[in-house]
C-alpha cells in the first residue's frame, strides 16, 4: 500500500509539469497586465516601462515560464506583483481558512448527504423519501450566494444565533459551512440513494434477508457500505472544491481563502499568485483522487487487493 502511494505520487510529477505549463500559458493569454494596477496617476510612461522590466514581463513568454519553473523546482513560488509578498506566504495565510471551511463543508455534505440519501433509500417511495429528496432538490436550485444571504437573514439577523460574517470565531463558520455544504448534500444524497437502490437489488442482499437479518441492518451494515464507493469517487473528484470552490461564499461572508485570493488576483492579473493558487488546486485534486482511491481501498477488499 505504501509502495502504491509512493508510486502514485511519483507519477504526479509529469502531470504536474504539464499542468504547470498549461496554467502558465492560460494565465498569460488572458488580456490585461498587473502593471495597470500599480501605476500611479501622474507617473510617466517611462516609469511604467521600468516596472514592466522590473517584473520581467517584457521577456518572451517561454523565458518567463522557464524562470518561474526553475524557481518552482527550488520550492519558490515567486513573489506577488500586486500583493508584494512571497506567493507561498499568501497561500500559507489563506489556505488554512479554505481548508477549514472546505473540510467542514465537505464533511457536512458527506455526512448529511449520505445520511439523507440512506434514509431516502431505506424508506424508498415513502413520504420520508419524497420529502427529503424534494427538499434537497429545492435547496440545490438556489444559487449559493443567494442561499448564503438567506441564511444570514434568518440565522444572523432574525435569530441572532451566529455572526453575519467574518472569520474570527468558530460560530462564524456555521453559516458558510451550511451554505456550501447544502449544495454538496444534494449531489451526495442523490448518488447515495441511487447507489443504495442499485446495490439493494444485488443477489447478496437476498441472501442476507434469507439469513434473517432485519431490513434496516442490511441497509446500514451492508448496502450502505457498497453505496459509499461511488460516493467516494464523486467526493474525491470534488476535493478541488475544498481548496478553491468557496469563492462566492468567501465574498458573501467576507472570509479569507484561496478562492477569493485567486479571483482577486485573477482580476488584477497578479500572475504569480494565480499560478500559485492554481497549482495548489491541481495538487489538491491529484491528492484528492489518491485519497479517494485509498478510502475506497479501505472500504472494499477487492480494491485493496488490486492496490497491493
Amino acid at each position, binding site marked *: 500500500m505504501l509502495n502504491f502511494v509512493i508510486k502514485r505520487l511519483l507519477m504526479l510529477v509529469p*502531470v504536474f509539469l504539464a499542468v504547470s505549463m498549461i496554467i502558465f500559458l492560460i494565465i498569460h493569454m*488572458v488580456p490585461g497586465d498587473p502593471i495597470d494596477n500599480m501605476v500611479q496617476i501622474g507617473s510617466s510612461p517611462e516609469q511604467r516601462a521600468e516596472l514592466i522590466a522590473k517584473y520581467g514581463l517584457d521577456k518572451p513568454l517561454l523565458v518567463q515560464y522557464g524562470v518561474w519553473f526553475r524557481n518552482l523546482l527550488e520550492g519558490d513560488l515567486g513573489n506577488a506583483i500586486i500583493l508584494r509578498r512571497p506567493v507561498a506566504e499568501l497561500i500559507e495565510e489563506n489556505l488554512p481558512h479554505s481548508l477549514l471551511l472546505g473540510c467542514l463543508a465537505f464533511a457536512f455534505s458527506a455526512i448529511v448527504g449520505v445520511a439523507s440519501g440512506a434514509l431516502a433509500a431505506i424508506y424508498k417511495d415513502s413520504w420520508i423519501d419524497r420529502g427529503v429528496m424534494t427538499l434537497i432538490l429545492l435547496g440545490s436550485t438556489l444559487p449559493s450566494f443567494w442561499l448564503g444571504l438567506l441564511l444570514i437573514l434568518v440565522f444572523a439577523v432574525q435569530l441572532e444565533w451566529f455572526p453575519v460574517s467574518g472569520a474570527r470565531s468558530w460560530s462564524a463558520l456555521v453559516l458558510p459551512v451550511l451554505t456550501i455544504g447544502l449544495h454538496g448534500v444534494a449531489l451526495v444524497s442523490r448518488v447515495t440513494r441511487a447507489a443504495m437502490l442499485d446495490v439493494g437489488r444485488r443477489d447478496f442482499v437476498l441472501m442476507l434477508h434469507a439469513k434473517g437479518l432485519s431490513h434496516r441492518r442490511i441497509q446500514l451494515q451492508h448496502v450502505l457500505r457498497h453505496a459509499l464507493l461511488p460516493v467516494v469517487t464523486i467526493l474525491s473528484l470534488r476535493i478541488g472544491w475544498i481548496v478553491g470552490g468557496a*469563492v462566492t461564499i468567501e465574498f458573501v461572508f467576507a472570509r479569507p481563502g484561496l478562492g477569493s485570493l485567486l479571483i482577486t488576483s485573477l482580476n488584477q492579473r497578479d500572475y504569480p499568485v494565480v499560478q500559485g493558487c492554481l497549482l495548489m488546486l491541481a495538487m489538491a485534486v491529484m491528492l484528492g483522487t489518491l485519497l479517494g482511491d485509498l478510502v475506497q481501498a479501505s472500504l472494499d477488499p477487492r480494491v485493496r487487493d488490486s492496490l497491493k
Partner: protein
Amino acid sequence: MSRLRKSSALSRTLGTWRGGVSLLCILIVVGGALFAPWLAPYAYDIQNLSATNQDPSWAHWLGTDEFGRDVLSRIIVGARTSLTVAITAISVSVLVGMSLGAAAGYFGGLFDRLVSAVVDLTWSFPEVLIALMFVALIGAGLEATMIAISIAYLAQFARLTRAQVMSIKSETYVEAAVNLGAGHIHILFRHLLPNAITPVIVAGMLAMGDAIILEATLGFFGLGVQPPKPSWGAMMSSGTAQIFLAPWTILGPGLAIAFTVVSINLFGDALIEALDIRNRLRDN
C-alpha cells in the same frame, strides 16, 4: 408480447406522474421563451425612470426594476437567454465531451491517458473559476459564458462517455460485429455511440438545470449576457444590490430558476427510471 414491452422509454417516462407533470412544466417554460414577445406584457428594455423599483401591482405583476422596467416581462424574455445558454452550452459540451470521451475510450492508450488527465483536471476546478478564466480570455458576452459553461461541464460528459464506451467495447455484440467484418467506423457509430448516448443525454438534461444556476452565479460576478438583454442570472445579480430595497426583483427570477430546474430534474429522474435497463428487463 405484452403491450408493456412495446412502449418506448418516453411514453414510459410520461406514464409516471412525475414524468408527465415535469414535462408539462418544461413545456410551459419553453413555450414562454418561444412566444416571449407576444406573452410579455411590456417590452423588456423600455425604461421608465420615473417609476423605478415599484411594488408589484396590477399593472406590473412582479413590480419594476431599478430602471422602471417590468420584471415579469423581463423574466419571460430572460427565459430565452437562460434557456439558450443552458441548451447551447450543454449541447456543445455533450458533443465535444462525447467525441473526446468516445475516442479516448475506444482507442485507449496514451491518447486516453492524456485526455483523461486533462478532463479530470477541468472537472475539479470550480466552474466559476473556469468561467472567469475564459471570460477573461475571450471577453465577456453570452458566447464567452456559453463556452465557459460548456467547458465546465465537458469533463463530466467525456468521463461518462468514456466509461460507457469502455464497457460497451467489450460487449459481445461489438465482437459479433467484428466477426461479421465491420470496421472502426461502423463499430463506433453504429454500436458504441448509440448505446452510450442514453446516460449522457440524461446527465445532459440534469446539467441543463445546473447550467441555468451557473449562469446565475456568473451573473453574480458580473459576467454573462450583455445589457439590456435580460437573463434570469443577470436579473438576480443586479437584483442582489437591491435585495433590501426591491426584493421582488430577485424573487421573480429566483422562482423561475427554481421552477425550471426542479422540472428538469424531475423529468431527468423519471427518464432515468424509464431508461433503466433493469426496468426494461422486468417488463420482459
